[in-house]
């Protein structure tokens, strides 16, 4: 079983499950990340987007129980010793977080925090580390890096802190960068800058990118492939074009219907009724059934599995929305989202 055959995929998650104090929040995630690809992970807060990757890197608190398989180039990470994980973190898979200002250490200088990562993963110290750190700061667009090397987190703006987080993440030259809602806490104009930066860096370095967000517009700009998650499961997976032109899971469609449009006649937004179910009292069948307009008795008793479809996407729904017929498409996605 544990054959370490080199696969095209950089990371493979298989049946990844997470429970906190016996309450399961992740119900078996299967997910592949290919080298150099940009994958979006979309869903409401609490659906397990971040937990998936925190679990994969062993960053969840001790009370979380994680089962399943996480493979990096065929090498199992789940349950591997701490020293193995410490080499992977930052060196192979780096992660940046939602709130950049509180994700940087307030009492250590920025320079020290970046050079620390350089020392661990690239053995750079002293002047060499400083030179490289300055190059990284320059690369992520921190003006006047030399003068600001010894400053502290509170002396930078939120957007600059996120740039510094990215610089720190790049320090280990990772093969995969997990960006966990990197723009959520930032102003709209700064968001666009950070997205541009991520797109540019991904192209320059060739690293893979997992972009976790609830902002479909941002996902469409950054990613090629999207996974939609709901209540700890992936419910639909496909290319950006597939999902955006013809969402088939009622939840995916609900997400699009809730985006305001700029052009065209003003229309009332269609919100998804109800709220995300409590992980403690998840419905027996499909977790989305109580909020879904297409629910049948079948949905309420049997949870659907994620199955491959003819057009290459994967879908977990017993009564999906019909595939849109070309030419008759009612466009649900604002043009500007697809650029």
């Amino acid at each position: 079983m544990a054959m370490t055959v080199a696969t095209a995929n950089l990371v493979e998650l298989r049946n990844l499950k997470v429970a906190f104090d016996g309450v399961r929040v992740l119900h078996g995630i299967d997910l592949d990340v290919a080298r150099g690809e940009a994958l979006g992970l979309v869903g409401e807060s609490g659906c397990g987007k971040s937990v998936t990757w925190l679990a994969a890197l062993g960053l969840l608190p001790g009370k979380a129980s994680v089962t399943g398989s996480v493979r990096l180039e065929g090498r199992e990470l789940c349950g591997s010793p701490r020293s193995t994980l410490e080499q992977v973190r930052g060196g192979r898979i780096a992660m940046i977080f939602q709130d950049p200002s509180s994700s940087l250490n307030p009492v250590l200088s920025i320079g020290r925090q970046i050079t620390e990562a350089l020392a661990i993963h690239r053995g750079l110290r002293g002047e060499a580390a400083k030179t490289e750190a300055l190059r990284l700061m320059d690369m992520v667009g921190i003006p006047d890096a030399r003068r600001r090397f010894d400053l502290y987190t509170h002396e930078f703006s939120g957007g600059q802190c996120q740039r510094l987080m990215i610089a720190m993440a790049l320090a280990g030259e990772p093969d995969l960068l997990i960006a966990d809602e990197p723009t959520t806490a930032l102003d709209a104009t700064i968001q666009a800058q950070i997205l541009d930066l991520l797109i540019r860096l991904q192209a320059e370095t060739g690293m893979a990118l997992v972009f976790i967000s609830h902002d479909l517009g941002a996902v469409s700009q950054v990613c090629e492939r999207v996974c939609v998650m709901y209540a700890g499961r992936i419910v639909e997976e496909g290319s950006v074009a597939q999902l955006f032109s013809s969402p088939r899971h009622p939840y995916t469609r609900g997400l699009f219907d809730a985006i305001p449009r700029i052009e065209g006649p003003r229309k009332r937004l269609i919100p998804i009724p109800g709220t995300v179910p409590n992980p403690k009292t998840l419905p027996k069948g499909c977790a989305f059934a109580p909020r879904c307009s297409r629910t049948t008795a079948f949905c309420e008793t049997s949870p659907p599995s994620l199955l491959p479809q003819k057009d290459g996407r994967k879908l977990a729904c017993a009564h999906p929305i019909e595939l849109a017929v070309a030419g008759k498409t009612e466009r649900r996605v604002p043009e500007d989202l697809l650029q």
Partner: protein
Amino acid sequence: MIRFVLVRVMRAVITILAVMTFAFVVLRMSGDPAEVMLGPDVPQNVIEAFRKSWGLDQPLWIQYLAYLKSIFTGDFGVSMRDKAPALQLVLERVPATLQLTVPALILKLLIGIPAGVYAALHRQSFADRGVILLAILGFTIPSFVMGLVLVLIFSVTLGVLPSGGQETWLHGILPTLTMSVGGVGILARFSRSAMIEVMGQPYIRTASAKGLKWRDVVWGHALPNAAVPIVTIVGFMVGSLIAGAVVVESIFSWPGIGRLLIVSVSNRDLAVVQCILLIVAGTMVVSNLAVDLLYGWLDPRLRSPASH
């Protein structure tokens, strides 16, 4: 920065002045040194002469002004009992007190902080609960009870350590232990809660996510952030190095400042009491000042001018 220091020094002077004034007034309102010193059966004219020679016949505010004047010229008065300069009497006792309080402080730091950090990192474990329980016991048991219990165990029952006096270093063990128990408990509690708070912060997750070893995450990233509340407590402990041993010195007949204070208060030996209180207030104020400066060194956010 200069303004910050000036403001702090001004505040320190005012604090010391307030302590001096309070001590001066209360001591003179609460009993007549002449009667205490000379005893009840002394003729009235002897008492009058005593009062006159120590200036106690003057109105209170004139005595006060004279006292202030002599303090500012470096004259701390003369002991009514020993007829020796008060400052000299007090300073003679300082080393004895420090012999107890400094080792006690070191014990508090060496046991309290690591115990608290360990408990925080192993939250909800058996060790954590043990630390909490011992810490609560440590700082809820008053030192006079703790001292007597230790004497009962080590002097009376086991007979391995002396119960009082200052002859050898063995005599210092029980008083030092008695004094450190409470501080260990307090430091353990504070270190634990400070570390728990810090370990839940996003930047700790960041530090782990970049591949730092766990040890470096704890000592390099977490502890510096938990240091401010811990330093505050340690500051109080340093400030009470001189005054903190009153009860313990009495229990173990240790000839330090604490014993001198008790004897001097009961004798209404005004100059000595005032001198002790001045030194105690001085150390407290100086250690508070040091703590304030340390804050800025520990946390760059407190260094920026906006926060003053």
